[in-house]
């Protein structure tokens, strides 16, 4: 089990919890486990093609999974996985 920290903006979809648990051996598995427990959060984390949305950054401890192999990054028992939004926008 890994602890998953949920950003303020997405807590409405985890019954208000700032911290949930997800089982899995990789970052992808842990996040998928969270979306199975809280289906409403799914479309805010993944796009229609099932890819992580560009503004969703996943950290294991202090390290961005981008530097650890992406969604295949290994998660160990007791690791803390943090979802951190990057904010983007613009005009046409």
């Amino acid at each position, binding site marked *: 089990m890994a602890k998953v920290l949920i950003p*303020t903006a997405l*807590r409405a979809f985890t019954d208000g919890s700032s911290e949930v648990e997800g089982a899995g051996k990789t970052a992808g598995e842990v996040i998928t486990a969270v979306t199975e427990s809280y289906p409403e959060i799914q*479309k805010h984390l993944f796009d229609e093609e099932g890819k992580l949305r560009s503004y969703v950054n996943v950290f294991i401890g202090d390290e961005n999974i981008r530097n650890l192999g992406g969604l295949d990054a290994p998660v160990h028992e007791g690791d803390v996985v943090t979802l*951190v939004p990057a*904010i*983007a*926008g613009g005009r046409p």
Partner: protein
Amino acid sequence: MISITKQVQDRINAEGERDYPNETCGFLLGRIERNDVRESDDIIPVVNARETEEAYHRFVILPQDFLKAEHEALAKNKNIIGIYHSHPDHPPIPSDYDLEHGLPFYSYLILSVKDGKADKLTSWRLENDRSGFAAEELKV
């Protein structure tokens, strides 16, 4: 409904004019009352991390800047309740790009900057099903 202080409005206007013709961006700090009434009395301007040639119509706030702002807000005993950005020479209405990248919960303030002068400021909230942005009443 969100109410912002005059000072917050003035600062967003000044940031938008300073960064024109590029987009400015930053966080709104404040608190959220029980009935979802939002009050902002402070901002944290953030450097637009988009490459220079794209910054005229795009902004991005990096996760490390987000975390820094969240800590700064906590230290002030406040919360991040929204995000502001400017639309240089464009109406203050969320774009498809804003929708694609928007987060729920936050108030999205959009400032139109016309010919370098701050114009209209509006506020929006992303629908929880991501179907669109709904206008949010904004009071100064």
